[in-house]
């Protein structure tokens, strides 16, 4: 289906105007940067209302099939919306796991019933989704999941616990990786994948206090929770394979996401903007040659990262190790963010020692972002594990 340039241009103008009109504006409290940081009811409700509004205006899931609640339009329209949202820095779409991981997964390999049941609620934010992969004792070692799912008549009985469940207390569903068997040929063979209800007896999401002193994650306990047997996705034993497919969506290596802004990440231009208005010891921070040099270093590094994606489209420039750029993306991006947030504190002189509150610079968001940046350098495979992965899969080095 080809779309004319003119049509796209007009659409962009329409979206831009709508966003300007409907941007929910400053809520009067510090907003989270992503769904992983939603820690209070007021934050959650503000963000859910906003997603609902965007969806009902027709700007979310635009390329998903119309029969399940999507827009049925070419992807390019959704991309324009996402770009405009980023440009105008409106709040993000909070049902991230539904929109970007569970949704595409269900559309790709779900049954007709599953698509009918789940897709619309994902888009409207009526049904919030969370993820149950990691476990307390096996951080980076997903394949070793010990949460049990035991068949009992038509149901499964779930026991164990999952950790880092963002939005756990708000979620209606969880994508759950659990062990249905312990006597397979290897640890992966016993895993199965569930689209599991959260609001049933025996499922108990308990908020975890983060190093920021805020909430935003849960540990979800399963105390012999009974869920319908139909909740399983695929067959018993296919869990690892489906989880890996889900991670491809999580890493953005595969398309099919509902679109819409996924986070309001601070970026290097925000740091530059902070640097421009900061003073250190009574002088503009940008008069300090060391600050200048560090800022330029960050800009070079950020530019290098930004250039990576367009470059990968030129095959000849990526023939030797085609996955190098994609597989190192998380490592590059998350470590850069951690470091530039640290740097942002150093722009504030003694006020670098403040924390979230009215007297802190920008309300303390830099301090909070620095602390929250660890969720990305740790979650989804620590930077140390990422380096193993790149070393082994991209460079072909032996396992550590």
């Amino acid at each position, binding site marked *: 289906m080809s779309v004319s340039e003119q049509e796209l241009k007009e659409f962009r103008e329409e979206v831009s105007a709508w966003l300007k009109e409907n941007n929910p504006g400053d809520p009067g409290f510090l907003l989270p940067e992503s769904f992983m940081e939603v820690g209070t009811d007021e934050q959650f409700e503000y963000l859910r209302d906003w997603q609902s509004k965007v969806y009902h205006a027709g700007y979310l899931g635009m390329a998903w099939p119309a029969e399940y609640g999507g827009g049925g339009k070419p992807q390019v329209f959704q991309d324009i919306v996402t770009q405009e949202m980023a440009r105008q820095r409106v709040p993000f779409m909070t049902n991230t796991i539904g929109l970007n991981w569970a949704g595409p997964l269900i559309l790709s390999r779900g049954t007709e019933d599953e698509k009918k049941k789940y897709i619309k609620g994902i888009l409207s934010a009526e049904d919030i989704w969370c993820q149950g992969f*990691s476990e*307390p004792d*096996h*951080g*980076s*070692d997903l394949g070793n999941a010990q949460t049990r799912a035991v068949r009992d008549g038509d149901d499964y009985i779930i026991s164990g616990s999952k*950790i*880092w469940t963002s939005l756990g207390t708000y979620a209606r569903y969880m994508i759950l990786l659990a062990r249905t068997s312990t006597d397979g040929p290897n640890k992966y063979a016993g895993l199965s994948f569930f689209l599991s209800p959260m609001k049933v007896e025996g499922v108990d999401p308990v908020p*975890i*206090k*983060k*190093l*920021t*002193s805020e909430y935003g*994650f849960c540990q979800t306990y399963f105390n012999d929770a009974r869920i319908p047997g139909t909740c399983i996705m695929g067959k018993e034993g296919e869990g690892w394979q489906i989880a890996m497919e889900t991670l491809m969506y999580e890493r953005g290596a595969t398309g099919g996401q509902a679109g819409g802004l996924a986070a309001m990440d601070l970026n290097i231009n925000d740091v530059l903007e902070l640097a421009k208005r900061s*003073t*250190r*010891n*009574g002088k503009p921070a940008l008069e*300090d040659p*060391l*600050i200048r040099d560090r800022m330029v270093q960050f800009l070079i590094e950020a530019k290098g990262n930004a250039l990576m994606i367009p470059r990968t489209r030129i095959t000849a420039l990526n023939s030797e190790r085609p996955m190098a750029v994609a597989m190192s993306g998380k490592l590059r991006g998350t470590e850069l963010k*951690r470091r530039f947030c*640290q740097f942002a*504190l*150093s722009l*504030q*002189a*003694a*006020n*670098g*020692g*403040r*924390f*979230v*509150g009215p*007297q*802190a610079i920008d309300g*303390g968001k830099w*301090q909070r972002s620095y*602390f929250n940046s*660890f*969720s990305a*350098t*740790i*979650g989804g495979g*620590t*930077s*140390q594990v990422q*380096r*193993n992965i790149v070393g082994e899969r991209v460079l072909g080095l032996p396992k*550590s």
Partner: protein
Amino acid sequence: MLLDTAMDFCSTHSPVTSVRTRIEEESDFSDDLWRQVIDLGWTAIIIPESYAGLGLSMTDLVPIVESMGRNLMTTPLVSSTLAAHALIEGGSEEQKNTWLPRIAQGAIATIALAEAEGSWNLKQLTSFGTRTNGKVQLSGSKNLVENAAAADVILISINLEGEPVLALIEKSLIPDGALTREIIIDETRRAYQLDLDGIIIDESMLLASCCLKQIEYATLLLLCAEMAGGHAAVLNVIVEYLNTRKQFDRYIGSYQALKHPTVQILIDMEASRSHLYHAATIWNTATEDELEIALRMAKAHASESFAHAGDRAVQFHGGFGFTYECDAQLFLRRALWCQYQFGDEKYHRQLLAPLLLD
């Protein structure tokens, strides 16, 4: 040896559980613990014998403050000592007679040098004093004042007729509502904003000499002691976890990705201690340049490396490190506070450059 005594006392009286309890509480510190610190004589260490003190040196406080830092122990000992040091260096005889014996016996004092802009240049002051009829009318505000709510006396810096001067404000002169608690990154500490507007002090409360440099040096020394202790402690937190946590069936301490950076943290900590005790050793005998070099080197090195150790401590604890429950964050917060008070590494290196290079 003072270090051993201090280490024993602080680890017994400030286990990490009690640190976490203190964070939750309203009061700025534990009265009970403070009483014991006084009984140990620590508040009297730097006070000259002629003012009912022990007549020892700032140097003797270093192992104590290092031990406090190691256990994240908070009392007004440092702020009281710094105020006493300012009085010794710049106070009038009357001021010394009035305050030094009281501080030696546990009166709480603090220093209020910072302002809203957060400048490390202590002479850059936007709080003012105006003289009239033997009185000084104050305006503006001081920020990040530690232990202000409990203080019997606060030593402030102000711009008086274009010159920086130091002055004492007694507790009784601080109106209700003039102190506001501030939110700072190190939750074990308490810091306040002090609004000066409307406060009038007697001229006799002005210090004879504006010994800002001496206060800065003493603060740097004690901050470095606190950081050296914290750095040693966070290293132990890391090593403990690396020796007990398993991933992929191996203790994570066997992975060089964690082991080797931890070795660097050890090396940095040892260097911090070396710089600290060097500065302490020459405290009483060095030329001003030598002392300034030693202190700024110590602060520059410790600021950067303790903050780095705190950062790595969080990372190396993986998911647990991201929780409030993990002790790594306590040290990271402490490290960031210390890094950004009285100049970070870049600031001190810039001040060192002319001393070392030109």
